[in-house]
């Protein structure tokens, strides 16, 4: 029996199904991807000599992590870190407080259309502008210092939290809210007893997550003069003081890890 006949008897062998089913679309995607890759690599000019020279410095930086220098610039690090934490706390509080009414307004099932449009507009603007660009504009308007950073983070918090809160309200269980309404509750009572208990756990979780993000963002706002640890870090890099920079980065990583751990505990408790 030849090989051919065996194949006929067994039928077609199984082949792994492709990820993109349509063959033409698949090949166009693959070819287009490689064409793009080639074009991209052609236009990036890498100075390999410079990169090679830099490897020593890169290694020095990696070594600096084994002996971070917390001491010699401690007062600068401390004041920068304190400013970052203060900006984070204040901006999170204000941002969360403002984003609750906007989140209510941006939920289609409880807000009338004009309010909905306005609130969605605010959310869209806040989400489309990156923190650092907002910070540049606010520094230009309000001057250097933590106030600009505080406003930037509050503004960014509003977009993030309102959107997720609104989506959560839109996905809530209607029956509970209707039951409260049927008992003759006024609008504030309806929100407080029908809607709030359903979205509160997620709101707490999201707020914790946002505090975490705000701290991480506050670390870069200093680059454009909006206060925080970023300015200290930038100076450390500019002066090639890698051990101080490593110390700052370790502190940032440590605080972010602590915040993440804390938010994990809180989220587990409220849910």
């Amino acid at each position: 029996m030849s090989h051919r006949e065996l194949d006929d008897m067994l039928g077609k062998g199984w082949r792994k199904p492709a990820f993109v089913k349509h063959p033409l679309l698949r090949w166009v995607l693959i070819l287009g991807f490689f064409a793009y890759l080639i074009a991209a690599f052609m236009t990036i000019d890498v100075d390999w000599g410079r990169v090679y020279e830099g490897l020593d410095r890169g290694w020095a930086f990696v070594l600096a992590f084994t002996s971070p220098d917390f001491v010699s610039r401690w007062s600068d690090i401390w004041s920068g870190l304190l400013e970052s934490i203060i900006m984070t706390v204040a901006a999170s509080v204000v941002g969360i407080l403002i984003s609750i009414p906007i989140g209510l307004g941006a939920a289609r099932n409880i807000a009338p259309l004009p309010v909905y449009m306005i609130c969605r507009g605010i959310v869209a603007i806040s989400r489309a502008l990156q923190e650092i660009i907002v910070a540049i504009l606010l520094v230009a308007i309000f001057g250097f210092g933590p106030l600009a950073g505080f406003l930037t983070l509050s503004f960014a918090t509003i977009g993030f939290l309102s959107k997720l809160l609104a989506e959560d309200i839109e996905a809530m269980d209607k029956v509970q809210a209707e039951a409260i309404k049927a008992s003759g509750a006024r609008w504030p009572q309806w929100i407080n007893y029908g809607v709030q208990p359903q979205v509160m756990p997620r709101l707490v979780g999201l707020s914790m997550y946002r505090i975490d993000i705000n701290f991480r963002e506050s670390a870069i706002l200093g680059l454009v003069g909006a206060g925080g640890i970023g300015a200290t870090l930038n100076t450390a890099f500019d002066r090639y003081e890698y051990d101080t920079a490593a110390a700052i980065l370790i502190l940032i990583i440590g605080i972010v890890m602590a915040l993440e751990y804390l938010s994990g505990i809180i989220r587990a408790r409220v849910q």
Partner: protein
Amino acid sequence: MPVLEQNDTQIWRRRTTGQSLVRWFGWLLGVAVFVYCWQFISESTTWFFVWDAPRIANDIWTRATPPKWDYITQLGRPIWDTLNIATLGTIIALCMAVPVAFLAARNTTPSTLFIRPIALLIIVSTRSINSLIWALLLIAIIGPGVFAGVIAIAIRSIGFCAKLLYEAIEEIDHTQVEAITATGASRWQVMAYGIVPQILPAFAGIAVFRWDINIRESTVLGLVGAGGIGLQLSASLNVLAWPQVSLILIVILVAVLISEWVSAKVRGAII
């Protein structure tokens, strides 16, 4: 159930006296912390500038409008660079995130005791530091340019992609893996036919999602000298060419909206 005796009648209450005291002190503490934070911010703010802010904002607005439309001819190359930074950065990050994710997932890691903590440390440390800080660091090491931006975006994205991916790996259906193992498949065959097909949709979703975020981040990387349209932005800001700044901001906004649209479409097609 906490009750209160009043004129020999028992009144239902939500909390015991101790519980409400603890809550009350919690709120007091929170308000005190916020007031302290606000005071700190207020002290390091020059309030004269803040009261002057509406005039300054108006001044900037009149300078920035109308945008200098013919400047757009010089923005083609920076936009291409920005796209390259985001795309190549995402590709490199995915290549590195896949092994890290497999090492970090509890059901695929070769050793829970030694290798998993290392993988988790890589994830946390790359995720908690912003791409702008990575860019600062890489510029000090390998010199300014697009290449530093690509690597900065890549490093920042490793943690993000690996975290989402390892969570997807931990949530896979075990019966499929067992079925493949039962046919006598080797460790790698189990990976390729039991695990990978289950996480492929999640992987594609994560890749597109991160690409979208990276487009946003790469537009501002130029502020610290890591290539892309941010370089033009910082150059225009430095010479106070506000009509150019407003045009660049519009271009960034459009790029962000397009990337968000593309990512939403692709994710919708996959899931």
